């Protein structure tokens, strides 16, 4: 999963550096951000659970 996220980040970086369209960059960046949140949620559940 981490490999896939870095691959998406590399794509997002490449598109950003090339000066691609605003929507394209935002979409790829948002996909990477959501993937980070999903993995974070997985590791939160795997370790100690929290009480709010």
């Amino acid at each position, binding site marked *: *999963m981490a490999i896939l996220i870095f691959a998406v980040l590399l794509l997002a*970086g490449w598109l*950003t*550096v090339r000066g691609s369209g605003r929507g394209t960059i935002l979409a790829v*960046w948002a996909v990477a951000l959501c993937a980070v949140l999903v993995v974070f949620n997985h590791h*939160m559940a795997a*370790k100690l659970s929290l009480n709010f």
Partner: protein
Amino acid sequence: MTGRLGFWLAHLFVLSYCGVLLAGFVVQFGADELPCPLCILQRQAMILVMCGPLYIIGRTRRGDVTLADYTMGYGMSIVAAVVGAAVAARQILLHIAPPDPGYGSAVLGLHLYTWSFITFCVVLVFCGVSLIFGRELVPRGVRFGWPSKVVCGLFLLIVAANLVAVFFELGFHWFLPPDPTRYETFHGLPLPGAAAMSGGAAG
């Protein structure tokens, strides 16, 4: 004048975070400490943060940057910094109670995840100030020259290096173990020096 300042501040932002990620590599390979899953998530959040100023730099390829582009760039950085700070805070809280020694060795008295939390807080302050003075700092009269190419190239190189490093650590597994102790890709391979590569300490 202030337009140029905003442009070079974006470069400084990316260069600074590239330095932080390179320091992470120094600790990983120099001190032989494997990053845990939360450390990897913080690196990913840092790269997401850097996409903001890179977006502003990349827009200069198309001429002047608009205020909408400028605010979107630093908006992306703020959102990613909040996520990164949440991950770092989670890791701090996991190890905060004594006698837990913390994960990995300390640098200048603080663990890497604490430094990471501090960098995310600095990013939030920097982006806030940049947005307050957004009208003055929007890059104007600048062009995408060789310094921009160097900064963008360095960024892409560091992301690619992280991709390779995490492949070494993860191998063909889906998730990292909570406390990784070896590079999975090299583990069990009959290569000269593979035992040394696969046997890193967790710290």
